[in-house]
């Protein structure tokens, strides 16, 4: 299948700046790499700024670059796959943060569909206009704003959010406090740090501890720790993080008296840090650690620099999701062969969803050579890892018997369906109950059957997926039916 390619150079490119101190220099750099780049300056709000770019764009898709970024020249040599440039798909490239080495998957270089941006529902009420954190998904693949995110694997920009103390402080404050939100609310008091999604916790750990070697890096650490503290333990309304003026005001009224009137304008030198700032960062860290259980270490400049040299950002998240976009042709052009590679990559982390999805492709021969044996083995692995959907599917195969190590075995099917139901896949309950009722005397258990039948009633009929365990039991095996 040949693909249509659209060179990045042929798209309109917009540089979005508001008050970033290095914006002029970064725009000059961008112009050198891509002379046609245009600048949208001073438009307040994420949504409005992007709509302004969409208004000005003469191409159906356009690129935005945040002003605190320097783009890799490789970016302008890229061509975009027409199969990905769909009406509601937002492509983004990861960005590497120069202060702490974090590579954020939801980066600062993005490609937008113009029509979508003009009509998109406002982001202004979403707290995280940069982070993936509080983007809620409508369905498995679609975000609440109706978009399909598509993440490219290679970082194409570096974020320099540390040109001045205020900017560095603000970057740390916003990012770290946002990472302590669960369902839009600060979680440390009510749920503790354990409620934070592991990937976010790992990132928060970096925001709170790495950066002493970067110019103004101590201000980023101070901001990160203070943000976590104020939002979680001092009842600061978290929406202030969207109010850029609040930060200037806070710096002037709270921090200048403490760190000297020149604090806002004097860059912090990692070689000769202000001892007052060092002490304040440590004191805040100590407080935060005792109250929240979040890890605090005081890495000196040398250790921080070494850390960044050794740090390899974890692979892209969302590989399983993108595999499903490809397999189903949602948001991108359907391509099961490539989907298999996405699933394989996600499965390498032991993501049980992806193991199950890969098993399905193998059993159906969709995009890959059909391989019942390998597919069955992977399905067993996903089920053993506790994936309720894989358990349900495998149960269906055990009820019929498909060979390849899966012979007819109603007792095993029942065990799997009960496990799936225990894993909150309620719809598996009914079949589990029926099998329990029909089981030979020694395994017959009316009380358990009743329990699973009750579980089954938890299923909301509106969300009942088309494939129930019963249907799986009644129809042919996956392999035969396709």
């Amino acid at each position, binding site marked *: 299948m040949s693909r249509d390619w659209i060179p990045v150079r042929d798209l309109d490119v917009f540089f979005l700046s508001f008050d970033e101190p290095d914006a002029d220099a970064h725009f000059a750099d961008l112009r050198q790499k891509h002379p046609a780049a245009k600048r949208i300056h001073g438009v307040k709000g994420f949504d409005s700024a992007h709509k302004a770019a969409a208004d000005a764009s003469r191409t159906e898709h356009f690129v935005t670059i945040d002003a605190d970024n320097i783009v890799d020249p490789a970016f302008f040599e890229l061509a975009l796959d027409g199969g990905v440039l769909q009406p509601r798909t937002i492509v983004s490239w990861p960005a590497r943060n120069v202060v702490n080495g974090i590579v954020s998957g939801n980066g600062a270089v993005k490609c937008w569909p113009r029509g979508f941006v003009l009509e998109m529902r406002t982001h202004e009420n979403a707290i995280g206009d940069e982070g993936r954190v509080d983007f809620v998904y409508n369905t498995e693949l679609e975000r609440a704003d109706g978009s399909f995110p598509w993440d490219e*694997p290679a970082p194409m920009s570096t974020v320099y959010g540390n040109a001045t103390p205020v900017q560095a402080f603000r970057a740390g404050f916003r990012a770290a406090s946002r990472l302590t939100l669960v369902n839009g609310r600060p979680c440390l008091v009510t749920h503790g740090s354990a409620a934070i999604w592991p990937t976010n916790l790992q990132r928060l750990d970096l925001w709170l501890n790495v950066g002493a070697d970067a110019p103004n890096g101590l201000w980023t650490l101070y901001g990160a720790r203070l943000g976590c503290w104020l939002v979680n333990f001092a009842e600061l309304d978290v929406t202030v993080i969207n109010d850029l003026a609040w930060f200037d005001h806070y710096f002037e009224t709270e921090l200048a008296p403490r760190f000297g009137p020149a604090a806002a304008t004097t860059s912090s030198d990692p070689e000769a840090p202000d001892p007052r700032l060092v002490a304040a960062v440590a004191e805040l860290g100590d407080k935060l650690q005792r109250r929240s259980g979040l890890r605090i270490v005081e890495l000196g400049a040398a250790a921080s620099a070494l*850390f960044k040299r050794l740090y390899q950002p974890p692979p892209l998240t969302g590989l399983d999701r993108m595999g499903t976009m490809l397999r189903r042709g949602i948001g991108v052009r359907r391509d099961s062969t490539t989907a298999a590679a996405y699933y394989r990559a996600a499965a390498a982390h032991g993501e049980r969803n992806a193991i199950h999805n890969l098993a399905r492709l193998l059993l159906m021969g969709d995009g890959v050579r059909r391989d019942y044996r390998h597919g069955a083995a992977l399905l067993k692995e996903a089920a053993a890892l506790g994936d309720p959907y894989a358990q349900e599917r495998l149960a269906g195969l055990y009820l019929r018997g498909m060979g390849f190590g899966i012979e007819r075995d109603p007792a095993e099917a029942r065990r799997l369906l009960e496990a799936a139901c225990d894993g909150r896949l309620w719809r598996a309950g009914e079949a589990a109950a029926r099998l329990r009722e029909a089981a030979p005397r020694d395994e017959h258990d009316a009380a358990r059957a009743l329990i699973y039948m009750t579980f089954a009633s938890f299923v909301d009929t509106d969300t009942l997926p088309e494939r129930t365990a019963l249907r799986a039991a009644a129809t042919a095996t996956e392999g035969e039916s396709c």
Partner: protein
Amino acid sequence: MLTRIADLDIVFIGYDEPAREAHWQDLVTKAPRALRIDGVQGFTSAFQAAAKAARTERFVTIDADCRMEATFLDHPLADDALNSNKVLSWPTRNVVNGLAYGNGGLKCWTRSMLLSCRTTDAEHVDHVGDFGFIFESRVFGTCHPNGSPMQAFRSGFREGVRLGLVKGAPVGLDGLNRDLPPNNLRRLAAWCTIGTDVHLGNWCILGAREGCLAAQTASLDWALLADYERFATYFAGVSERCSGAPEAVSRAAGERLRAAGFAVADLAPGESAFFRDQLADAVDVVAFDSLGNEYHSGRDLPKHPEQAFAAYLTGALLGHGNAMNNVARCYRDGTGVAADPVAAQNWLLDAAAVGNHWALLRLGKAALKAGDSAAAAGWLERAVRAGNAEAVDLLATLGQAEPGETGRR
């Protein structure tokens, strides 16, 4: 037909590992039918004893300093790998420094490859020895090299030596940054830095630092690596030098490495834990690139361009630069996938963006050919920083007057 690890015999191989009894108990709770070989001296002899004990042609060994996760038993094995004459090897995560790569403590052999092996124990300097390996990506266990001061020191020492070699030869202290492949450089620095918070971790760090120094300054007695008794004598000397506590000697070794420009640090325990948690390899991404190479070359696995491409693409999606570069090559040459020069260029640019030195060199050369010397200088400077030697010469021919790096500060 074999499909899962659980279908194979599992043999536990112990020698003098201090924690072997606890690890054996852990294993039999997960795999009650596991077999055990104990006290057989010598690498070849011990694994041959395991082969004799095993009743399945393919069987799994677990080193006595390792613990296996129970989920390993459900892991299915690919037919091509099973039918090859190669050892399959799963990385195990080192509890001292969090690294998981290459040869771990979980392997899958065939009985015949071991029983027909004629190499004597004395000839075995390196475990890899006579056998071909397929490296798997997923981590299914932990490795505990810190059962005693000597075990900890020895494990660090061996890796300190091994990771500093290129084609079997040391690169010299001043060559570490320049000549080591980036992955090995990173691992060597991690061995020399992380673990101060772990039981006997300082012995591990000392071992790595001294192993590295000995190998790179030509003061290494190579026979040490193969001869356990000789090593015990050597360690007795080290222990005396340290008066039982490795910290001060380790700091001095670290000082020497830093003086040569090799970045290691003496971390406080909390810092060490932070480094390990954040740097721990979730998966060995290199494995997909290696698998792609196996299918591409057809040396030990059946030649299969489509499988090679699929493996490269998987590694590339996990962010591995070499794999991205190989995906680019497949698209360029149309091997395993329909030729597509635009896709090839895209993947080459991606590889460059993650700092792959081959990709940066190729882009630099292409820019030179196109007569864009400013762009060429930009790519080549990055290639040099990423450790590419050829780019140094090319950059020199461009002259010093070229504008500096673009897009970086």
